């Protein structure tokens, strides 16, 4: 019995030594260590022995089993490592094949800009508010210190709603496509929830169509109203936005201007990235900017008449407001060099999927 066991061990170890492939490994496992394998058979024979012989043979049988198993494990490790090395040597990919893009869609550039702009203002506590795009001229003009017949109302080149030769009118005057997001100012103040830190982003409409002006475009309007709001705070908010959106190395300036609904009024300029604020390029004047500055948009301290229209006492409350074009702001940064702003809204997927 013992001899037979020793012989089985010798034989198994010799076979294991010769194993080269995973298939041979499996065959050897089944032959010697399988449920019905040679070792199992030998173990069965043990049962026939008497108690003393069984004790002695059993001890040997266990040694043999441990030895064969250990040898098998070593063999397995050797064969698996060999097979892996073989695969590495043989298997191959054409790694020059192009990548397959993930099947994600593309947000429109304008949506991306709106998302980013609202995100920046959210950091300094401005919340997004929603106001009509088709509105009463009361909110678009009248309440913004632009009485009827005021020439300022001509500048906006406004679309009116109406049919059969008659402008639609109602409770608060004529109905217009709002030419600026400033119609949200008095609407927001009227809500009576103070203090206000609002960003209103929406579609605006003006009767103009050219490579630089669209009849439909987007603006974002900022409005802050509280006790003791100052020009210096508007300057702080403007600086913060410009540095976050355009980059920390861009300079800003406030330049006096005139709007009916703010007093004082100014335009906000940022330094030109092309000529680095010098106004000059190699062959003469910078074509993008005016003397090194690009005009971002208008701003100012809310006119007391606007606060009054919203039901506030201008001796108690002050505020600032700004209104800038989304497309203009986006094009000023992106360097996407779109000559014709109409390209943005042609809905051509070959353009849209670039972003």
């Amino acid at each position, binding site marked *: 019995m013992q001899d037979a066991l020793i012989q089985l061990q010798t034989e198994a170890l010799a076979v294991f030594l010769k194993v080269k492939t995973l298939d041979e490994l499996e065959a050897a496992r089944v032959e010697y260590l399988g449920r019905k394998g040679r070792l199992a058979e030998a173990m069965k024979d043990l049962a026939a022995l008497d108690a003393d012989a069984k004790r002695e043979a059993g001890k040997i049988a266990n040694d043999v089993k441990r030895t064969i198993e250990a040898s098998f494990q070593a063999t397995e490790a050797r064969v698996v490592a060999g097979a892996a090395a073989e695969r590495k040597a043989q298997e191959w990919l054409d790694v020059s094949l192009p990548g397959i893009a993930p099947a994600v869609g593309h947000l429109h550039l304008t949506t991306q800009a709106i998302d980013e702009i609202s995100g920046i203002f959210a950091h300094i506590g401005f919340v997004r508010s*929603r106001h009509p795009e088709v509105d009463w001229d009361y909110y678009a003009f009248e309440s913004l210190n632009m009485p009827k017949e005021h020439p300022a109302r001509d500048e906006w080149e406004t679309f009116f709603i109406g049919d059969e030769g008659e402008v639609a009118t109602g409770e608060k005057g004529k109905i217009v496509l709002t030419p600026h997001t400033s119609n949200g100012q008095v609407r927001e103040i009227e809500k009576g929830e103070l203090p206000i*830190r609002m960003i209103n982003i929406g579609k605006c409409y003006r009767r103009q169509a050219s490579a630089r002006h669209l009849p439909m475009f987007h603006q974002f309007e900022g409005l802050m109203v509280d006790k003791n709001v100052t020009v210096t705070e508007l300057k*702080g908010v403007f600086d913060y936005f410009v540095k976050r959106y355009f980059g920390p190395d861009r300079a800003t300036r406030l330049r006096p201007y005139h709007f009916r609904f703010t007093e*004082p009024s100014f335009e906000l300029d940022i330094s030109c990235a092309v000529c680095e604020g010098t106004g000059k390029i190699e062959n003469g004047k910078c074509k993008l900017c*005016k003397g090194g500055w690009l005009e971002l948009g208008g701003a100012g301290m809310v006119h007391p008449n606007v606060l009054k229209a919203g039901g506030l006492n201008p001796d108690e409350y002050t505020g600032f407001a700004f209104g800038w074009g989304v497309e203009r702001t986006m094009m000023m940064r992106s360097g996407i060099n779109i000559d014709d702003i109409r390209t943005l809204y042609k809905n051509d997927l070959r353009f849209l999927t670039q972003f």
Partner: protein
Amino acid sequence: MNILASYNWLKEHVKTKLSAEEFAKEFSLRSMSVESVEHLDQRFANMVIGVVKSIAQHPNADRLRVATVDIGEKEVPIVCGGTNLAENMRVLVALPGSRVRWHGGADWTTLEKTSIRGVESIGMICAPSEVGLDKVACGDHEIWDLTSIIDAPAGASVAAALDCDDIIFDIEITTNRPDAMGMIGLARDAAVAVDAEFSLGKFESVESRALESFSSHRITVKKDDDRCGRYMAAVVEGVTVGESPWWMQKRLLLAGLKPINVIVDISNYVALELGQPMHAFDAETIAKDTIVIRPAKKGEKLTLLDGKIAELNPSIMVIADAEKSLAVAGIMGGKDSGTTAHTTTVVFEAAMFDALTIRRGSRAIDVASDSQLLFEKGLSPSALPIALARAVELATELAGGTLVDVVDVYPEPRKPKVFAFNPEQARKRIGVDIADAQQIDILTRLGFDVAKKKSAYSVTVPYWREDDIEGEVDFTEEIARMYGYHNMPAVLPASRPPAAFDDASLDWAMWTKKFLAGAGFSEFFSNSMVSVADLEMYAVSPKDALALYNPLSADITHMRPTLVPSMLRAIERNQAFTNTANVFELARVYVPREGDIPEERMTLVFGEYGVTNAESTFMQLRGVVEYFAAKSGITLTFDRAPKNDHWHDGRTVTITFDGVTVGTLGQVADDFQNSFGIHRPVFLAEIDLEALFSSMKHAHRYQALPAFPVVTRDIAVLVDEKTEFEKISSVVRGAKSLVTDCRVVELYRGEGIPSGKKSVTVGVTLMAPDRTLTSQEVDDVMTTVIRELALRVDGVIRG
């Protein structure tokens, strides 16, 4: 409005030594935006005065001649085509290296030494337009004859000889500041901006001088129109109307104006100086020496200075005589009443017209002028005597006339505006501690008269700012800008956070867009304004859409009440380049309401065009809607759509939320696909997000993982083509309680499947909450499932 302002002229009134660039910078920061600075010595670089010594015919060209020109140090040959070229003529010679505009075109080019048709030519004899002075009178094919203008010697630099060693600023004047359209007003602002002394200079004597008064009148003025607030006329006799002196012509030219004759030039010069438009009539043309200011008669016509015939009506004001109209008030003079070389007596007009009347009149007759641009901004009647006195002074000096009459019709003299002023208010709004004294100094230097009252100040507004200054807050602006915004700190608001929160619908709209982009859809942005054709092509009555009263063109006339027509248009434009794609648009639609502004509803349209497998596209789009609903915490149900025109009946569902239909998902009906010119099927979902926003929530609920193994079994069932999956699913799910899910694994038609049938492979999920299922249990359930399918949907198990 932009103006071209000469730095030399400004410096007559502002004592500054700043370089032009420094001046432009300071001025832009505190006053108006200087958009460009042009150094004329650069424009006239390498240009000299030449004297033509002799002229010979060009040997190889009929129309060219070769002039020998004395340019100081030497005489050079220059080929020239100018028809008026003559010996001893003083001309402007552009030498090689100078920059000129060929024949007055738009582009500047650098001149080189060259030979023209075989003859050497050192430079070019220029026409005025070739050096950027387009407004100098000069015939076609003529060169600029400087003989009578200047007597500088040959070789003199052009900038010096023409007294053009100057710098020109292009400045944007804001609409509230017509006073700054005049050099005096501009200089007054500039002096404060650059902290220099302001002086009226030569103008001082005029401003303080009262016009003589005359007891007997040469002319009569009848003001029959209240829209004229004040009318002044001065009659100057014995004038000789020739050219104005070069210094005056030069200033007009550099400001972009065209010199005409000494009288017209004086009117324009005074306007440049003061921002007060003037007009001059030939007294001989005024019938019965009577000037009448009145509304135009209906149908009245007047030939204007520019030759255009204006058709007038009573909304327009005219200056007339006893018989006929002479000028459209404030807009443009008539051709027949202007001054000419034969004029000996002129009537200078200085008037104040209602801004709105001028603005509307100009639009009505489609005539614009520098005068109208000023009047429509709102001017003060107090400027008139000063402007008139200045014009008379210049006329006497330059045209040799004598003042014989002055008439002033001013029934309701204006009182100066006075406002209380509290420096503390300005400090509070600006946020910077600017001392009272500094504030008052700024106001005073700008011409405001500040008087101390008990606790505050009283500020009198100077006449030239009457229209602009409306209240105390306007003083804050004057103080803030002159203090300098660039000198103020930038401070982030540290005050209380806002009371409101972000508008939830905007948040959800952005979330939806990002969800769709993540799911592979690309975003369109179409115009909210659509055409009648767009609407009708989609069978939407234009009556159901908001119409524009004044559309810009026929393709944008209505506010869209649905996004689908824009989407179909966009698909049509894309199909040639991108034959299939997943796209979406999320925007407001405008629903008309009687007597009210429209309801604006945020709406979503998304889908796929260029569809080849309707079933799979439908399932994918439905999957997007289902996933969208699950992620935003709402429950949507889908039902086969009733018969309708817009959608393909057999391939469409309606989407319902909380018992209300909120959208449709399916194939666009062939009719509309065709009418929009789209080649292949389009599947869209149109969802009224507005109905969902208030219920959407970021609800993430945790479901416990199964405690015991889940078993899935796939079976393929052969059923009729029109057997709906929902039916199959309910049979499977209802067969035994151990069935917890039933999914579509594969749909198959084709080889081995009889026509009119389909093979549906369903994945059946089985699970018990309290134990591991034995294979016997699973087999039993599946047997029941198979039996039920055979019984209820005629299902035959395949394979």
